[in-house]
């Protein structure tokens, strides 16, 4: 029902999210400064290795996000009580995952231009990543199809589980496809980076920082989804009442 008094709590933030948020800002600031200034240039790759501190963590977190989506979808489908909370986590995680995957592809192609001289190579890892991105863009499109909230949850959970089935198939076919025709040794961007302590630590902080970003975004996004579902619901209560009054007055 529409509230009589305006709700006092007008955000999705809590003590916990604020702590995560502050931590995120601290860690990310450190990653940016250390990645750009403190860490040394690579012997082979030169300065361009600095892109690694944002590229590699965002790729990892994108994959993490898609795994979270799959797990949450499985919980939604297989748990006795089909709890919509799992669906919201799955959706929020996929959205964040798509964002990180776009970051990964953009930073990766910038890095590729510097090291290989080309923005794009038909390397198995790149190709799989591109297919994966399109798959999850499709997943998000399925979430926007019209229908009830339960319908959305069920459809998207099925699609998420099918997408997980598809990841190994796409990956192996692409790896197999390339390996038959050319050796992919020079294409491996991480193979020839010699890491010293600070570089490793910065990369590690990058992973931590991006994970914090992920957690913070998921918490807020998932609550925002709940709010907008509830907002529809509260409109519904008013609508039921209005419709009943309508029938009485007739």
């Amino acid at each position, binding site marked *: 029902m529409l509230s009589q008094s305006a709700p006092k709590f007008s955000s999705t933030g809590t003590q916990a999210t604020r702590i995560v948020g502050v931590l995120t800002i601290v860690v990310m600031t450190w990653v940016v400064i250390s990645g750009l200034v403190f860490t040394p240039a690579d012997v082979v790759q030169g300065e361009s290795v600095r892109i690694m501190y944002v590229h590699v963590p965002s790729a990892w977190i994108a994959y993490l996000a898609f795994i979270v989506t799959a797990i949450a979808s499985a919980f939604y489908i297989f748990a006795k009580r089909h709890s919509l909370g799992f669906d919201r986590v799955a959706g929020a995680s996929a959205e964040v995952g798509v964002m990180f995957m776009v970051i990964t592809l953009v930073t990766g192609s910038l890095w590729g231009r510097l090291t290989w001289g080309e923005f794009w190579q038909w390397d198995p890892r790149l190709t799989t990543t591109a*297919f*994966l991105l*399109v*798959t999850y*863009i*499709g997943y998000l*499109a*399925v979430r926007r*199809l*019209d*229908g*009830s909230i*339960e*319908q959305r949850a*069920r*459809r998207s959970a*099925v*699609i998420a*589980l*099918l997408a997980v*089935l*598809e990841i190994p*198939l*796409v990956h*192996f*076919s*692409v790896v*197999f*496809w390339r390996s*038959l025709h050319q050796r992919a040794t020079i294409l491996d961007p991480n193979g020839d980076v010699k890491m010293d302590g600070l570089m490793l630590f910065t990369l590690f902080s990058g992973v931590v920082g991006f994970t914090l970003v992920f957690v913070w975004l998921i918490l807020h996004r998932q609550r925002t989804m709940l709010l907008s579902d509830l907002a529809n619901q509260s409109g519904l209560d008013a609508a039921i009442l209005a419709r009943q009054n309508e029938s009485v007055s007739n």
Partner: protein
Amino acid sequence: MKKTVKKTGRSRVASAVFIKDLRIEARSRVVTNQVLPFAGLIMVMFAFALDNDDVLQRVAGGLIWLATIFSLFIIVQRSFAIDTSDSALDSLRVAGIDLSAVFLGKSIALSLQLIALDVVLIAAAFLLYQVQVSVIGLVLLVTCVICATTGLGFVGTLYGGLTAGTNGRETLLPLLLLPVVAPVLIAATRATEAAFGSGGAAISEGWAWVGLLAIFAAVFGVGGSLAFGPLIDE
């Protein structure tokens, strides 16, 4: 009051749906009169665009499967348009029919139509692109076509069912299907190239790809029969 209709066997439902789909196709001839010319046109247009016999021989396999996948989108949408135009799909849902059997019936009908399409496309490749094939190559080619079309039939029906009756299905279907069928495109292309001996590929290379196609078909056959009901229901 309590006399309930006895549940019909899955194979019976599947075969009824299969016969129904093929009979409608035999009568309306949409695949033969529209999709087939469309796919043939793709092959001819590529011949114009590439205009080089050596290149055409090399890429013949890829073109066949690209044309197949484009035709798949049309056939899938047509197949579900038949079921949704007079709400027959709703009637099936109301009647409590085993939807996984509907899935199987529709997939197999779809695969058969794709096989017929591929036979014509491969014949076109022989005529237009001057590809050669040995007897062993032909065995490989036939196996590849069967495995690939089975897999395409399963995924096509699965995602076609999901998008049937929704807004924007014409664009959503390719968006969902393209990344999923990527392995089929790659594997079937490589196997066909091996069968044709394009670019010096050996026939033995092709069988590994056919194996991948078989795995793909199995995964989506099982996944599809489980998922199809929940997807189109509600």
